[in-house]
């Protein structure tokens, strides 16, 4: 008898629990891409809370990464939203998708002051003070300052992990600058963990490190990575879009160029733009994280080993001055009550 009661009450609780989930769904179900790096995680979780508490959506986060998420959104119309789409990697198809009204660029600059490029560890500058202020073109003449572990007669340039958009760009720049002839090896760190690991290993032991990274990231803040000026002009969109970002076989003759100015967008599918309504599109359009605030959040996440969901709560409770401007005061109240 007693056991029956317990089971019954358990079923009842479960039933009520699932009902309350459905009751929230005004704007419907929204699938948001939760890409596998810290700032994207934070943005996805913040969007999740704001859309759920403020606009009554039912948000599901699904894992993603630059290329797969974009391909899926473009081809399949799902997920509905990518909070942090790095546009350089997908420039041509993105423009096409926007023209053909499959995707909408809802926010042209969700984070200010960001960029991709080549960086040095402070240890490199300490060991070779001449590096200070050197441009990339000058550094390329000195592979001997960055000895490669597997062949010390060569210099190691740490590129991008396989499969990232930037991997193709780095590989093509490697050819454009004739780095092989100059005695460099393009090292594939294999994964995000490999890339970060190679930086923290070098920074911790004070060894020189030269390679690709981007800002805003906790790694740049934590290890004080120094950006390298290019010492060469940007050689035009045509070279970049139709060659540098393409696979090697599609880019026969890459021209030397600086890195393109980074463009990050929040993109949503046109289906979600209709389904979500004007209020949500307006919120996404206003949602801009100032660079220093974002960097501060990322260092907080790294220091506390916090995931995106913890960081989102930290952000929403500490930085109301930032997100308060994104939504109407009525919605802001709802979100604050929901925290």
């Amino acid at each position, binding site marked *: 008898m007693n056991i029956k009661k317990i089971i019954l009450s358990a079923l009842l609780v479960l039933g009520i629990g699932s009902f309350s989930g459905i009751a929230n769904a005004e704007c419907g179900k929204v699938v948001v891409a939760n890409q596998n790096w810290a700032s994207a995680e934070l943005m996805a979780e913040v969007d999740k809370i704001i859309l759920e508490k403020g606009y009554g959506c039912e948000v599901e986060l699904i894992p993603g*990464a630059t*290329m*797969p998420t974009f*391909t899926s959104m473009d081809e399949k119309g799902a997920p509905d939203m990518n909070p942090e789409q790095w546009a350089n990697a997908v420039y041509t198809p993105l423009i096409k998708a926007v023209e053909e009204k499959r995707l909408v660029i809802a926010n042209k600059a969700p984070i200010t002051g960001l960029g991709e490029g080549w960086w040095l560890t402070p240890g490199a500058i300490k060991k070779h003070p001449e590096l200070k202020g050197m441009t990339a073109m000058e550094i390329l003449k000195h592979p001997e300052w960055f000895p490669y*572990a*597997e*062949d010390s007669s060569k210099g190691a340039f740490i590129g991008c*992990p*396989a*499969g*990232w958009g930037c*991997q193709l760009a780095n590989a093509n720049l490697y050819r454009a600058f004739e780095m092989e002839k100059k005695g460099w090896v393009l*090292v*594939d*760190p*294999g*994964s995000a*963990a*490999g890339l970060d*690991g*190679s930086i*923290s*290993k*070098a920074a*911790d*032991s004070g060894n020189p490190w030269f390679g690709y990274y981007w800002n805003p990231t906790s790694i740049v803040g934590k290890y004080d990575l120094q950006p390298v000026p290019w010492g060469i002009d940007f050689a035009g969109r045509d070279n970049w879009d139709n060659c540098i970002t393409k696979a090697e076989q599609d880019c026969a003759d890459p021209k030397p160029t600086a890195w393109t100015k980074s463009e990050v967008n929040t993109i949503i599918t046109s289906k979600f733009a209709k389904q979500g309504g004007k209020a949500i599109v307006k919120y996404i359009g206003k949602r801009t994280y100032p660079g220093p605030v974002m960097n501060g959040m990322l260092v907080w996440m790294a*220091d*506390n*080993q916090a995931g995106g969901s913890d960081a989102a709560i930290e952000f929403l409770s500490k930085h109301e001055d930032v997100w308060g401007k994104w939504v109407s005061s009525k919605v802001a109240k709802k979100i604050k009550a929901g925290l």
Partner: protein
Amino acid sequence: MEFLNKFPVMERTSLMELKKGIDLSFRQFSRKYGDGIENFFDPLLFFLIKLEKLLLSTPWPIIILIIGILAWIGSRSWVLVIGSTLSFLAIGYFGMWKDCMATVAIISVCTTVCIAIGIPIGIIMSKSNRAEKTILPILDMMQTIPSFVYLIPILMLLGIGKVPGLIAVCIYAVPPVIRLTNLGIREVDKETLEASEAFGATTFQKLKSVQIPLSLPTIFAGVNQTIMMALAMVVIASMIGVKGLGVPILRAISNQYLALGLMNGLAIVALAIIFDRITQEYGRRIQKHRGQKK
């Protein structure tokens, strides 16, 4: 009632402090000893690089010939010799020769390291019940702990490259050879052992001339499993910068290149089948030999 509904959790801040403390102490450890440990593994790196260079600089027909000969020595079966030759020809024809040789190099070195470490540990385990009791749970852990978890400390200690990749592969691949060496020696017939004792054999003589020869087929099954598991780890090893067939697979996963992924995946499968059949046949032949003598 609240106690029952809510699991008593360690306080959030102290939990965070604990995690941070573990991280910090490991970071300090790796700062202090990282370079030393790296130097310790230098000979291994040297060997790996030399082997890969040798495999790549040798003209391909010679490599294929060597593989054919190895297949013949191992299995004495024409089917296997022709099969492995054709597979390697196909791998080369589809432009995977370089990656394939890098994979063969790391798998060979890894298998050698695993055998060198695994068989002595297996022998120790078979000699002492206490050693068996302590080592078995460690082996269980090595086989089940997700490889991404131990990639983090390996990365912090050794950075990216061949050696950390090799260690990651070995952690996963060494247990079978240890387990089966232990099992094989323990399973040797008691009466045979008694007979050798009656002839006055010392412990070492018993081990060398009775126990190891009789357990060889089982040990060989372990080596075979170790090779298979090492091949299965190729993709994971590529995530920390090991060149080989895993790299194009990672690229294929992130870019949805179906054909690229499939081709390289099948190349790994082909390698696995060749290694597996040759070592298995070899193991069977040893057994046959024993059967005839009986």
